[in-house]
């Protein structure tokens, strides 16, 4: 702060300096805005926010470490390939890092000349993973392209979530509205809810078979209980005054359900949906590992016996990115659909 002393007017220069400080403060976290007058910031959670520069630093660190740990230092720029390899149409240029290292390993002319923290069989290099991504996208793995695997997985999740919601929300509402329904559904819900969906995979495969026919029911099972409980607590969260006000304004039972209880339960339904989506996504990958011919989980698992760590890493990254994207979409929807949440 360049506060003028003894009534000296603030000149242009000092004002400009302040503007600049404010701009960089937002990126680097120097004190600014409301914070610049606070003397206590350690322990004041309102003074703590996520600084973009540090987020970028973390991102760069992760990829930097991956790159440094898997880069083969001192690997020759070019190597003569054996005749049989040349006949097979291979050039050193076209080889992946993993193959180059394999070629190099047996040869006198480059032995001992390179070093690497993580071997190709421990973790794939950045370049190999990058190239594998495009290979999977264009040619596919075991004749299934990345997009086909992704859409198979997403399709299962969507159907599982739809099934779980369409079954769970009415049951949850019934449990919140009627003593008979509460009594009837309480027992099965409390008995079945604690079962981890993964424990049911073998049973579901035997009953429904391999692929979608067992994966989708499993995902419905995974999301159903969460949606039931979310819907039930959503109904129970309704303020009695709101319901009474609606009846006093001439609403019928049906109208109270559609125009009061349902919109009022939206925040709880949304929370349930987000939790269920997370659980469903995790269950899906496990279900595909053992019981599906396609899907991202199947791809990751099928790469193991072939030692295709690059395929695994691409699969894992795609699974992670999709998970993040789904959460972003849901958060955006939440801000549009229930703007009143947490206010008032």
């Amino acid at each position, binding site marked *: 702060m360049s506060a003028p002393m003894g009534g000296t007017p603030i000149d242009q220069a000092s004002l400009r300096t302040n503007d600049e400080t404010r701009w960089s403060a937002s990126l680097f976290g120097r004190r600014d805005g409301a914070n610049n007058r606070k003397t206590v910031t350690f322990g004041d959670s309102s003074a703590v926010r996520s600084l973009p520069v540090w987020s970028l630093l973390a991102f760069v660190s992760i990829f930097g470490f991956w790159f440094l740990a898997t880069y083969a230092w001192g690997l020759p720029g070019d190597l003569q390939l054996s005749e049989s390899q040349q006949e097979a149409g291979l050039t050193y240029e076209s080889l992946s890092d993993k193959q180059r290292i394999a070629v190099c390993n047996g040869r006198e002319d480059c032995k001992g000349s390179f070093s690497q923290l993580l071997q190709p069989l421990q973790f794939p290099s950045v370049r190999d993973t990058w190239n594998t991504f495009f290979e999977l996208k264009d040619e596919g793995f075991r004749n299934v392209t990345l997009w086909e695997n992704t859409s198979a997985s997403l399709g299962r999740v969507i159907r599982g979530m739809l099934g779980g919601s369409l079954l769970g929300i009415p049951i949850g509402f019934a449990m919140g509205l009627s003593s008979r329904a509460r009594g009837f559904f309480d027992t099965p819900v409390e008995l079945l809810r604690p079962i981890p969906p993964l424990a049911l995979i073998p049973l579901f495969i035997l009953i429904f078979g391999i692929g979608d026919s067992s994966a989708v029911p499993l995902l419905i099972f995974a999301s159903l209980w969460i949606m039931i409980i979310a819907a039930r607590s959503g109904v129970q969260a309704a303020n009695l005054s709101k319901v*009474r*006000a609606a009846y006093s304004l001439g609403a019928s039972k049906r109208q109270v359900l559609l125009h009061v209880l349902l919109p009022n339960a939206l925040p709880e339904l949304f929370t349930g949906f987000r939790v269920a989506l997370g659980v469903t996504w995790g269950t899906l990958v496990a279900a595909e590992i053992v019981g599906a011919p396609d899907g991202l989980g199947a791809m990751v698992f099928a790469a193991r016996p072939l030692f295709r760590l690059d395929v695994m890493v691409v699969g894992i990254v795609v699974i992670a990115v999709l998970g993040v994207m789904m959460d972003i979409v849901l958060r955006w929807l939440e801000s549009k659909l229930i703007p009143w949440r947490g206010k*008032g």
Partner: protein
Amino acid sequence: MVYDVPNGESVHALSDVSFDLEAGRLLTLLGPSGCGKTTLLNILAGFLAPTGGSVSLGGAPITGPGQERGMVFQQGALFEWLTVEQNIGFGPRMNHANKSETKARAAELLEIVGLGGFGDKRIYELSGGMQQRVALARCLANDPDVILMDEPLGALDALTREKMQGLILELWKETGKTIILVTHSVEEALYLGDRVFVMAPRPGRIHSDYQLPFAEQGLTTDARELKAAPEFTQKREEILSIIWEMEEEIMGRQEAS
């Protein structure tokens, strides 16, 4: 009318509460907590059925909630997922009223309660006093014969509360509606009620029934002046001492048992 409402097993929330109220009156219910003011209001609204006795409006018995009895709650009864205008239009919409008429009526009511131009706002964007104005407008949109108010100004700060009292008096005079208002503020009960029931607890009953001129005067006289007038302060002290006696009696009874 006789109500006898056991709450749980044998607690008499109300006992032998009988009265008639002419149309167009503003009745305030006043009393210490636990005297059954809100229970009485809920019975009138039709949310509770009396265990004994009967309630009727214009000769027709009250068996459940109905549009001819509008209700204004203390707070939290507005629909957050709707805009201010949609909240006000809720009643007509439930009755499948003409949409453009409902819209026009909502705009008109917003002007009446002093919220012109706020129709597109969300409920959480309004202050507590503004929210209660919306609640009043929503209630009026259905054109009820009787408006029941359960401590409608209880959650507001003192200044907002005085302004809202003025608004309630104006609405009462302009619309000619019958209003029954529950409050725990003696001043508010005296200022608003042209009839005041002071209620006594355990079991809840009407202790005294006042007919007062202040509500009528409040329409023409300044509120601060009226509340400072000797007749007003005298009545206030009189009722306060009744309530204090009740409180002390309750305390004594509790110590004895």
